[in-house]
Protein backbone atom coordinates (compact mmCIF):
# COMPACT_ATOMS: atom_id res chain seq x y z
CA UNK A 1 0.00 0.00 0.00
CA UNK A 2 0.91 3.64 -0.26
CA UNK A 3 2.39 5.09 2.92
CA UNK A 4 2.01 8.87 2.93
CA UNK A 5 4.15 9.55 5.96
CA UNK A 6 6.97 7.44 4.59
CA UNK A 7 6.67 9.22 1.26
CA UNK A 8 6.97 12.63 2.95
CA UNK A 9 10.16 11.70 4.80
CA UNK A 10 11.79 10.32 1.67
CA UNK A 11 10.70 13.24 -0.49
CA UNK A 12 12.08 15.83 1.96
CA UNK A 13 15.36 13.93 2.06
CA UNK A 14 15.58 13.80 -1.74
CA UNK A 15 14.78 17.49 -2.13
CA UNK A 16 17.55 18.37 0.35
CA UNK A 17 20.01 16.51 -1.83
CA UNK A 18 18.64 18.05 -5.01
CA UNK A 19 18.45 21.76 -4.16
CA UNK A 20 21.52 23.77 -3.38
CA UNK A 21 20.49 27.38 -2.78
CA UNK A 22 17.22 29.14 -3.52
CA UNK A 23 14.13 27.92 -5.33
CA UNK A 24 10.77 29.20 -6.50
CA UNK A 25 7.63 27.07 -6.46
CA UNK A 26 4.84 27.48 -8.97
CA UNK A 27 1.66 27.67 -6.89
CA UNK A 28 -1.80 27.39 -8.42
CA UNK A 29 -4.02 27.05 -5.37
CA UNK A 30 -4.52 23.35 -6.00
CA UNK A 31 -3.45 20.42 -3.89
CA UNK A 32 -0.49 19.30 -6.05
CA UNK A 33 1.44 22.54 -5.90
CA UNK A 34 0.52 23.13 -2.24
CA UNK A 35 1.86 19.71 -1.25
CA UNK A 36 5.01 20.22 -3.33
CA UNK A 37 5.52 23.63 -1.69
CA UNK A 38 5.25 22.24 1.84
CA UNK A 39 7.61 19.35 1.18
CA UNK A 40 10.21 21.68 -0.31
CA UNK A 41 9.75 24.30 2.37
CA UNK A 42 10.34 21.62 5.02
CA UNK A 43 13.52 20.71 3.18
CA UNK A 44 15.00 24.16 2.49
CA UNK A 45 12.96 26.52 4.69
CA UNK A 46 13.13 30.20 3.82
CA UNK A 47 15.11 29.56 0.67
CA UNK A 48 11.78 28.86 -1.03
CA UNK A 49 9.54 31.51 -2.60
CA UNK A 50 5.98 30.60 -3.69
CA UNK A 51 4.73 32.36 -6.79
CA UNK A 52 1.10 32.58 -7.84
CA UNK A 53 0.50 33.95 -11.32
CA UNK A 54 -2.83 35.66 -11.88
CA UNK A 55 -3.41 34.78 -15.53
CA UNK A 56 -6.88 36.25 -15.76
CA UNK A 57 -8.04 32.71 -16.47
CA UNK A 58 -8.65 31.55 -12.94
CA UNK A 59 -11.92 30.64 -11.27
CA UNK A 60 -14.13 33.08 -9.39
CA UNK A 61 -12.56 34.16 -6.10
CA UNK A 62 -9.41 32.15 -6.84
CA UNK A 63 -6.93 34.89 -6.00
CA UNK A 64 -8.50 35.50 -2.59
CA UNK A 65 -8.59 31.78 -1.89
CA UNK A 66 -4.97 31.27 -2.92
CA UNK A 67 -3.84 34.24 -0.84
CA UNK A 68 -5.50 32.87 2.26
CA UNK A 69 -4.08 29.41 1.54
CA UNK A 70 -0.56 30.80 1.22
CA UNK A 71 -1.03 32.69 4.48
CA UNK A 72 -2.11 29.43 6.14
CA UNK A 73 0.87 27.57 4.74
CA UNK A 74 3.12 30.17 6.29
CA UNK A 75 5.51 30.33 3.32
CA UNK A 76 7.12 33.27 1.53
CA UNK A 77 4.95 34.17 -1.41
CA UNK A 78 4.41 36.62 -4.18
CA UNK A 79 1.46 37.24 -6.50
CA UNK A 80 2.24 38.27 -10.06
CA UNK A 81 -0.43 40.04 -12.11
CA UNK A 82 0.01 38.77 -15.67
CA UNK A 83 -3.54 39.05 -17.01
CA UNK A 84 -2.69 41.35 -19.91
CA UNK A 85 0.38 39.32 -20.86
CA UNK A 86 -1.64 36.11 -21.10
CA UNK A 87 -4.56 37.51 -23.08
CA UNK A 88 -2.17 39.23 -25.47
CA UNK A 89 -0.21 36.01 -26.05
CA UNK A 90 -3.40 34.02 -26.67
CA UNK A 91 -4.94 36.49 -29.11
CA UNK A 92 -6.22 34.76 -32.25
CA UNK A 93 -5.07 31.30 -31.10
CA UNK A 94 -7.59 28.50 -31.72
CA UNK A 95 -5.59 25.29 -31.64
CA UNK A 96 -5.63 23.55 -28.21
CA UNK A 97 -2.00 22.39 -28.39
CA UNK A 98 -0.84 25.85 -29.44
CA UNK A 99 -2.72 27.34 -26.48
CA UNK A 100 -1.02 24.93 -24.11
CA UNK A 101 2.43 25.68 -25.55
CA UNK A 102 1.91 29.44 -25.25
CA UNK A 103 0.68 29.12 -21.67
CA UNK A 104 3.52 26.79 -20.65
CA UNK A 105 6.06 29.18 -22.20
CA UNK A 106 4.51 32.21 -20.55
CA UNK A 107 4.58 30.61 -17.10
CA UNK A 108 8.27 29.78 -17.44
CA UNK A 109 9.07 33.28 -18.71
CA UNK A 110 7.46 34.71 -15.56
CA UNK A 111 9.07 32.21 -13.19
CA UNK A 112 12.52 32.87 -14.70
CA UNK A 113 11.99 36.61 -14.36
CA UNK A 114 10.98 36.29 -10.70
CA UNK A 115 13.65 33.69 -9.91
CA UNK A 116 16.36 35.95 -11.27
CA UNK A 117 15.31 38.71 -8.86
CA UNK A 118 16.11 36.53 -5.85
CA UNK A 119 18.91 34.49 -7.39
CA UNK A 120 17.02 31.18 -7.47
CA UNK A 121 18.13 28.43 -9.82
CA UNK A 122 15.41 25.86 -9.17
CA UNK A 123 11.76 25.68 -10.12
CA UNK A 124 9.58 23.40 -7.99
CA UNK A 125 6.42 22.11 -9.67
CA UNK A 126 3.58 19.94 -8.43
CA UNK A 127 3.83 17.71 -11.50
CA UNK A 128 2.02 14.38 -11.03
CA UNK A 129 2.01 11.17 -13.08
CA UNK A 130 -0.83 11.94 -15.53
CA UNK A 131 0.92 15.21 -16.50
CA UNK A 132 4.00 13.53 -17.93
CA UNK A 133 2.15 10.42 -19.12
CA UNK A 134 -0.29 12.42 -21.24
CA UNK A 135 2.43 14.82 -22.44
CA UNK A 136 3.99 11.85 -24.26
CA UNK A 137 7.51 11.46 -25.61
CA UNK A 138 9.50 8.58 -27.12
CA UNK A 139 7.08 5.67 -27.58
CA UNK A 140 4.20 7.36 -25.77
CA UNK A 141 1.77 9.39 -27.82
CA UNK A 142 1.01 13.00 -26.86
CA UNK A 143 -2.59 13.18 -25.69
CA UNK A 144 -2.19 16.77 -24.50
CA UNK A 145 0.91 18.78 -23.65
CA UNK A 146 0.54 19.60 -19.98
CA UNK A 147 1.76 23.15 -19.34
CA UNK A 148 4.28 21.97 -16.74
CA UNK A 149 5.81 19.15 -18.82
CA UNK A 150 5.18 18.98 -22.56
CA UNK A 151 4.80 22.73 -22.94
CA UNK A 152 8.06 23.74 -21.27
CA UNK A 153 10.07 25.97 -23.63
CA UNK A 154 13.40 24.89 -25.06
CA UNK A 155 16.40 26.58 -23.50
CA UNK A 156 14.74 26.94 -20.12
CA UNK A 157 17.38 27.72 -17.50
CA UNK A 158 15.68 26.84 -14.23
CA UNK A 159 16.35 23.35 -12.94
CA UNK A 160 13.16 21.39 -12.30
CA UNK A 161 12.34 19.80 -8.96
CA UNK A 162 9.21 17.64 -9.02
CA UNK A 163 8.77 15.63 -5.82
CA UNK A 164 5.33 14.25 -6.79
CA UNK A 165 6.11 12.87 -10.27
CA UNK A 166 5.15 9.29 -9.44
CA UNK A 167 1.93 10.08 -7.60
CA UNK A 168 -1.66 10.33 -8.76
CA UNK A 169 -4.23 12.75 -7.36
CA UNK A 170 -5.64 10.33 -4.78
CA UNK A 171 -2.13 9.75 -3.42
CA UNK A 172 -1.30 13.48 -3.39
CA UNK A 173 -4.48 14.00 -1.36
CA UNK A 174 -3.33 11.38 1.15
CA UNK A 175 -0.02 13.21 1.47
CA UNK A 176 -1.89 16.52 1.75
CA UNK A 177 -4.07 15.20 4.58
CA UNK A 178 -0.99 13.92 6.37
CA UNK A 179 0.55 17.39 6.04
CA UNK A 180 -2.68 19.10 7.10
CA UNK A 181 -3.14 20.98 3.81
CA UNK A 182 -6.56 22.61 3.74
CA UNK A 183 -6.95 22.35 -0.04
CA UNK A 184 -6.44 18.56 -0.08
CA UNK A 185 -10.03 17.87 -1.06
CA UNK A 186 -10.31 20.62 -3.68
CA UNK A 187 -11.32 19.36 -7.10
CA UNK A 188 -8.60 19.27 -9.78
CA UNK A 189 -8.14 22.43 -11.83
CA UNK A 190 -5.64 22.30 -14.69
CA UNK A 191 -2.80 24.80 -15.05
CA UNK A 192 -3.98 26.32 -18.35
CA UNK A 193 -7.16 27.01 -16.41
CA UNK A 194 -10.14 28.47 -18.26
CA UNK A 195 -8.13 28.72 -21.49
CA UNK A 196 -8.82 25.03 -22.17
CA UNK A 197 -12.46 25.36 -21.12
CA UNK A 198 -12.96 28.00 -23.79
CA UNK A 199 -13.00 26.26 -27.14
CA UNK A 200 -11.86 28.72 -29.74
CA UNK A 201 -10.28 32.09 -29.04
CA UNK A 202 -9.54 33.03 -25.44
CA UNK A 203 -10.67 36.61 -24.89
CA UNK A 204 -11.37 38.44 -21.62
CA UNK A 205 -15.11 38.30 -22.45
CA UNK A 206 -15.02 34.55 -23.11
CA UNK A 207 -13.09 34.04 -19.87
CA UNK A 208 -15.75 35.98 -17.98
CA UNK A 209 -18.51 33.79 -19.44
CA UNK A 210 -16.67 30.54 -18.71
CA UNK A 211 -15.81 31.73 -15.19
CA UNK A 212 -19.41 32.63 -14.38
CA UNK A 213 -20.73 29.36 -15.81
CA UNK A 214 -18.13 27.35 -13.87
CA UNK A 215 -19.11 29.13 -10.67
CA UNK A 216 -22.80 28.28 -11.18
CA UNK A 217 -22.01 24.60 -11.87
CA UNK A 218 -19.79 24.40 -8.79
CA UNK A 219 -22.32 26.14 -6.55
CA UNK A 220 -25.30 24.06 -7.59
CA UNK A 221 -23.50 20.72 -7.51
CA UNK A 222 -21.87 21.42 -4.16
CA UNK A 223 -25.21 22.52 -2.71
CA UNK A 224 -26.94 19.34 -3.92
CA UNK A 225 -24.13 17.10 -2.72
CA UNK A 226 -24.26 18.74 0.69
CA UNK A 227 -28.00 18.10 0.89
CA UNK A 228 -27.36 14.47 0.01
CA UNK A 229 -29.15 14.63 -3.35
CA UNK A 230 -26.06 13.41 -5.19
CA UNK A 231 -22.50 12.26 -4.69
CA UNK A 232 -19.94 15.02 -5.15
CA UNK A 233 -18.21 14.24 -8.48
CA UNK A 234 -14.42 13.95 -8.71
CA UNK A 235 -14.36 16.94 -11.02
CA UNK A 236 -17.20 19.23 -12.19
CA UNK A 237 -17.17 22.36 -14.30
CA UNK A 238 -18.52 24.21 -17.31
CA UNK A 239 -16.96 25.11 -20.63
CA UNK A 240 -17.79 27.56 -23.39
CA UNK A 241 -18.33 26.33 -26.94
CA UNK A 242 -17.83 28.66 -29.90
CA UNK A 243 -21.09 27.33 -31.35
CA UNK A 244 -24.04 29.66 -31.59
CA UNK A 245 -27.61 28.56 -31.89
CA UNK A 246 -31.02 30.15 -32.22
CA UNK A 247 -33.23 30.81 -29.22
CA UNK A 248 -35.98 33.10 -28.09
CA UNK A 249 -35.73 35.49 -25.18
CA UNK A 250 -38.68 37.72 -24.30
CA UNK A 251 -40.35 37.30 -27.70
CA UNK A 252 -37.12 38.30 -29.41
CA UNK A 253 -34.90 36.08 -31.50
CA UNK A 254 -31.65 35.20 -29.75
CA UNK A 255 -28.46 33.85 -31.30
CA UNK A 256 -26.21 32.91 -28.41
CA UNK A 257 -23.38 30.66 -27.28
CA UNK A 258 -23.44 27.16 -25.82
CA UNK A 259 -22.21 26.10 -22.39
CA UNK A 260 -21.41 22.47 -21.69
CA UNK A 261 -21.47 20.89 -18.25
CA UNK A 262 -18.88 18.23 -17.44
CA UNK A 263 -18.83 16.11 -14.29
CA UNK A 264 -16.96 12.83 -13.82
CA UNK A 265 -16.19 10.13 -11.29
CA UNK A 266 -12.55 9.11 -11.12
CA UNK A 267 -9.82 8.14 -8.68
CA UNK A 268 -6.68 9.10 -10.52
CA UNK A 269 -7.80 10.99 -13.61
CA UNK A 270 -6.53 8.23 -15.90
CA UNK A 271 -9.99 6.72 -16.43
CA UNK A 272 -13.30 8.40 -15.74
CA UNK A 273 -17.02 7.82 -16.10
CA UNK A 274 -19.49 10.66 -16.45
CA UNK A 275 -21.44 11.50 -13.29
CA UNK A 276 -25.12 10.67 -13.03
CA UNK A 277 -26.22 14.15 -11.98
CA UNK A 278 -29.93 14.18 -11.12
CA UNK A 279 -32.05 15.97 -13.73
CA UNK A 280 -33.34 18.37 -11.07
CA UNK A 281 -29.79 19.60 -10.52
CA UNK A 282 -29.07 19.86 -14.25
CA UNK A 283 -32.30 21.79 -14.62
CA UNK A 284 -31.31 24.32 -11.94
CA UNK A 285 -27.91 24.80 -13.53
CA UNK A 286 -29.44 25.25 -16.98
CA UNK A 287 -31.97 27.82 -15.79
CA UNK A 288 -29.38 29.81 -13.86
CA UNK A 289 -26.85 29.87 -16.70
CA UNK A 290 -29.33 30.89 -19.39
CA UNK A 291 -30.89 33.52 -17.13
CA UNK A 292 -27.77 34.98 -15.58
CA UNK A 293 -25.61 34.95 -18.71
CA UNK A 294 -27.39 36.78 -21.53
CA UNK A 295 -24.81 35.69 -24.12
CA UNK A 296 -25.68 32.00 -23.54
CA UNK A 297 -28.94 30.44 -24.69
CA UNK A 298 -28.15 26.74 -24.69
CA UNK A 299 -26.75 24.31 -22.10
CA UNK A 300 -25.69 20.72 -22.83
CA UNK A 301 -24.44 17.87 -20.65
CA UNK A 302 -21.39 15.80 -21.65
CA UNK A 303 -21.99 12.06 -21.18
CA UNK A 304 -18.63 10.78 -22.46
CA UNK A 305 -16.35 8.49 -20.45
CA UNK A 306 -12.53 8.57 -20.51
CA UNK A 307 -11.47 6.94 -22.76
CA UNK A 308 -12.41 7.88 -25.40
CA UNK A 309 -13.00 11.42 -24.08
CA UNK A 310 -10.60 13.20 -21.77
CA UNK A 311 -11.96 15.00 -18.71
CA UNK A 312 -11.22 18.51 -20.00
CA UNK A 313 -12.20 19.26 -23.60
CA UNK A 314 -8.81 20.52 -24.82
Amino acid sequence: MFDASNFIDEAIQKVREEIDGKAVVATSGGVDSAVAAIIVSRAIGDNLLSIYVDTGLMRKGEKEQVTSMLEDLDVNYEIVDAKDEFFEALEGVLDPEEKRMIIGGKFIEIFEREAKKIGAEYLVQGTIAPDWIESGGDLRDTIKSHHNVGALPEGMELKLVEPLRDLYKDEVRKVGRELGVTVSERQPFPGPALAIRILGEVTPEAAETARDACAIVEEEIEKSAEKGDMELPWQYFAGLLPIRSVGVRGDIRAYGYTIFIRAVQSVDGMTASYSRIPHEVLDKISIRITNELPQVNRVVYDITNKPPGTIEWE
Partner: protein
Amino acid sequence: MKVFVVDNGGQWTHREWRVLRYLDVETKIVLNTTPLEELEVDGLVLSGGAPRVGLDAGMMGNNAEYLEKGEFPILGICAGHQFMAIHFGGEAGPSGIPEFGRTEIVVDEEDELFEGLPKAFQGWESHNDEVTVLPEDFIGLAHSNNCKCQAMKYLKRPIYGVQFHPEVEHTDYGNDIFKNFLNVCEENR
Protein backbone atom coordinates in the same frame (compact mmCIF):
# COMPACT_ATOMS: atom_id res chain seq x y z
CA MET B 1 9.14 -11.22 -5.49
CA LYS B 2 10.22 -9.11 -8.44
CA VAL B 3 7.85 -8.31 -11.32
CA PHE B 4 8.80 -5.58 -13.78
CA VAL B 5 6.72 -3.64 -16.29
CA VAL B 6 8.01 -3.37 -19.85
CA ASP B 7 7.03 0.04 -21.21
CA ASN B 8 5.61 -0.14 -24.72
CA GLY B 9 4.43 3.46 -24.51
CA GLY B 10 0.98 2.93 -22.97
CA GLN B 11 -1.08 5.57 -21.20
CA TRP B 12 -1.49 3.10 -18.33
CA THR B 13 2.03 1.62 -18.06
CA HIS B 14 2.57 3.60 -14.86
CA ARG B 15 -0.76 2.32 -13.51
CA GLU B 16 0.53 -1.25 -13.92
CA TRP B 17 3.55 -0.24 -11.88
CA ARG B 18 1.26 1.30 -9.25
CA VAL B 19 -0.94 -1.80 -8.94
CA LEU B 20 2.13 -4.03 -8.54
CA ARG B 21 3.59 -1.65 -5.97
CA TYR B 22 0.33 -1.69 -4.01
CA LEU B 23 0.48 -5.50 -4.04
CA ASP B 24 3.87 -5.23 -2.35
CA VAL B 25 6.08 -6.74 -5.01
CA GLU B 26 9.38 -5.22 -6.04
CA THR B 27 8.68 -3.47 -9.33
CA LYS B 28 10.15 -1.08 -11.85
CA ILE B 29 9.22 0.28 -15.27
CA VAL B 30 11.85 -0.69 -17.86
CA LEU B 31 12.38 0.32 -21.49
CA ASN B 32 11.31 -2.33 -23.98
CA THR B 33 14.84 -2.26 -25.35
CA THR B 34 16.25 -3.59 -22.05
CA PRO B 35 18.35 -6.73 -22.76
CA LEU B 36 16.80 -9.92 -21.37
CA GLU B 37 19.97 -10.68 -19.35
CA GLU B 38 19.38 -7.53 -17.31
CA LEU B 39 15.93 -8.68 -16.25
CA GLU B 40 16.36 -10.80 -13.17
CA VAL B 41 12.66 -11.11 -12.46
CA ASP B 42 10.00 -13.56 -11.31
CA GLY B 43 7.47 -12.24 -13.78
CA LEU B 44 6.99 -9.61 -16.47
CA VAL B 45 4.13 -7.42 -17.60
CA LEU B 46 4.21 -6.24 -21.22
CA SER B 47 2.35 -2.94 -21.28
CA GLY B 48 0.02 -1.61 -23.91
CA GLY B 49 1.17 1.23 -26.08
CA ALA B 50 0.78 3.61 -28.94
CA PRO B 51 2.55 1.28 -31.43
CA ARG B 52 0.03 -0.55 -33.60
CA VAL B 53 1.71 -3.91 -33.57
CA GLY B 54 0.42 -4.85 -37.00
CA LEU B 55 1.91 -1.68 -38.46
CA ASP B 56 4.89 -0.74 -36.31
CA ALA B 57 6.15 -4.00 -34.82
CA GLY B 58 9.63 -2.43 -34.99
CA MET B 59 8.72 -0.27 -32.00
CA MET B 60 8.15 -3.27 -29.75
CA GLY B 61 11.86 -3.55 -28.87
CA ASN B 62 12.88 -6.81 -27.20
CA ASN B 63 9.35 -8.05 -26.46
CA ALA B 64 9.94 -10.98 -28.84
CA GLU B 65 13.04 -12.05 -26.95
CA TYR B 66 11.27 -11.90 -23.58
CA LEU B 67 8.48 -14.10 -24.97
CA GLU B 68 10.87 -16.50 -26.64
CA LYS B 69 13.49 -16.95 -23.97
CA GLY B 70 12.09 -15.61 -20.71
CA GLU B 71 11.92 -18.28 -18.01
CA PHE B 72 9.27 -16.45 -16.02
CA PRO B 73 5.49 -15.91 -16.36
CA ILE B 74 4.43 -13.07 -18.66
CA LEU B 75 1.23 -11.03 -18.78
CA GLY B 76 0.74 -9.07 -22.03
CA ILE B 77 -1.75 -6.22 -21.96
CA CYS B 78 -3.39 -4.66 -25.05
CA ALA B 79 -0.50 -4.05 -27.48
CA GLY B 80 1.57 -6.52 -25.41
CA HIS B 81 -1.21 -9.11 -25.85
CA GLN B 82 -1.54 -8.47 -29.60
CA PHE B 83 2.20 -8.67 -30.15
CA MET B 84 2.25 -11.95 -28.22
CA ALA B 85 -0.35 -13.44 -30.58
CA ILE B 86 1.60 -12.44 -33.68
CA HIS B 87 4.88 -13.60 -32.18
CA PHE B 88 3.57 -17.13 -31.59
CA GLY B 89 2.08 -17.39 -35.08
CA GLY B 90 -1.41 -15.99 -34.60
CA GLU B 91 -2.81 -12.82 -36.11
CA ALA B 92 -3.81 -9.38 -34.88
CA GLY B 93 -5.28 -6.52 -36.87
CA PRO B 94 -7.75 -3.64 -36.86
CA SER B 95 -10.89 -4.25 -34.81
CA GLY B 96 -14.20 -4.36 -36.64
CA ILE B 97 -15.61 -2.25 -33.83
CA PRO B 98 -12.89 -0.78 -31.59
CA GLU B 99 -13.79 -0.55 -27.90
CA PHE B 100 -13.25 2.42 -25.58
CA GLY B 101 -14.35 2.65 -21.98
CA ARG B 102 -16.79 0.26 -20.34
CA THR B 103 -17.25 -3.23 -21.83
CA GLU B 104 -18.63 -6.42 -20.38
CA ILE B 105 -15.97 -9.13 -20.24
CA VAL B 106 -17.36 -12.66 -20.37
CA VAL B 107 -15.16 -15.46 -19.04
CA ASP B 108 -15.27 -18.59 -21.21
CA GLU B 109 -12.65 -20.80 -19.59
CA GLU B 110 -12.03 -21.47 -15.92
CA ASP B 111 -8.44 -20.51 -15.39
CA GLU B 112 -6.02 -19.38 -12.69
CA LEU B 113 -5.96 -15.86 -14.16
CA PHE B 114 -9.67 -15.38 -13.51
CA GLU B 115 -9.86 -17.44 -10.34
CA GLY B 116 -12.46 -16.17 -7.90
CA LEU B 117 -13.98 -13.79 -10.46
CA PRO B 118 -17.60 -13.81 -11.62
CA LYS B 119 -18.41 -15.14 -15.09
CA ALA B 120 -18.94 -11.60 -16.38
CA PHE B 121 -17.54 -8.33 -15.13
CA GLN B 122 -16.95 -4.75 -16.23
CA GLY B 123 -13.65 -4.11 -18.00
CA TRP B 124 -12.27 -0.84 -19.29
CA GLU B 125 -10.96 -0.80 -22.87
CA SER B 126 -8.99 1.38 -25.25
CA HIS B 127 -7.99 -0.36 -28.45
CA ASN B 128 -8.05 -0.01 -32.22
CA ASP B 129 -6.58 -3.47 -32.93
CA GLU B 130 -7.22 -6.92 -31.54
CA VAL B 131 -6.19 -10.57 -31.77
CA THR B 132 -8.05 -12.07 -34.72
CA VAL B 133 -6.50 -15.55 -34.90
CA LEU B 134 -5.20 -17.40 -31.84
CA PRO B 135 -1.72 -18.95 -32.19
CA GLU B 136 -1.35 -22.70 -32.01
CA ASP B 137 -1.34 -24.06 -28.44
CA PHE B 138 -3.16 -20.99 -27.16
CA ILE B 139 -6.70 -21.03 -25.80
CA GLY B 140 -9.10 -18.11 -25.54
CA LEU B 141 -10.19 -17.34 -21.97
CA ALA B 142 -12.70 -14.53 -22.39
CA HIS B 143 -14.58 -12.43 -24.95
CA SER B 144 -16.79 -9.35 -25.20
CA ASN B 145 -19.62 -8.47 -27.54
CA ASN B 146 -17.35 -6.84 -30.09
CA CYS B 147 -14.07 -8.65 -29.48
CA LYS B 148 -13.65 -12.41 -29.65
CA CYS B 149 -10.35 -12.55 -27.79
CA GLN B 150 -10.35 -10.54 -24.54
CA ALA B 151 -7.91 -12.96 -22.90
CA MET B 152 -5.78 -15.90 -23.92
CA LYS B 153 -3.29 -18.35 -22.46
CA TYR B 154 -0.36 -20.34 -23.79
CA LEU B 155 -0.73 -24.02 -22.90
CA LYS B 156 3.01 -24.76 -22.85
CA ARG B 157 4.25 -21.98 -20.60
CA PRO B 158 2.71 -19.53 -18.07
CA ILE B 159 2.10 -16.80 -20.62
CA TYR B 160 -1.14 -14.79 -20.73
CA GLY B 161 -2.58 -11.97 -22.79
CA VAL B 162 -5.49 -9.65 -22.05
CA GLN B 163 -7.03 -7.09 -24.38
CA PHE B 164 -8.79 -5.08 -21.65
CA HIS B 165 -6.96 -3.18 -18.91
CA PRO B 166 -6.94 -4.80 -15.46
CA GLU B 167 -4.61 -2.03 -14.22
CA VAL B 168 -7.13 0.83 -14.28
CA GLU B 169 -9.47 1.78 -11.45
CA HIS B 170 -12.59 1.41 -13.58
CA THR B 171 -12.01 -2.28 -14.36
CA ASP B 172 -13.74 -4.43 -11.75
CA TYR B 173 -11.57 -7.14 -10.19
CA GLY B 174 -8.47 -5.73 -11.89
CA ASN B 175 -6.49 -6.11 -8.67
CA ASP B 176 -7.61 -9.72 -8.38
CA ILE B 177 -6.37 -10.47 -11.88
CA PHE B 178 -2.97 -9.06 -10.94
CA LYS B 179 -2.99 -11.04 -7.69
CA ASN B 180 -3.79 -14.20 -9.64
CA PHE B 181 -0.92 -13.47 -12.02
CA LEU B 182 1.40 -12.95 -9.03
CA ASN B 183 0.29 -16.34 -7.68
CA VAL B 184 1.37 -17.89 -10.97
CA CYS B 185 4.71 -16.08 -10.63
CA GLU B 186 5.07 -17.36 -7.08
CA GLU B 187 4.38 -20.97 -8.12
CA ASN B 188 6.90 -20.67 -10.91
CA ARG B 189 9.77 -19.46 -8.71
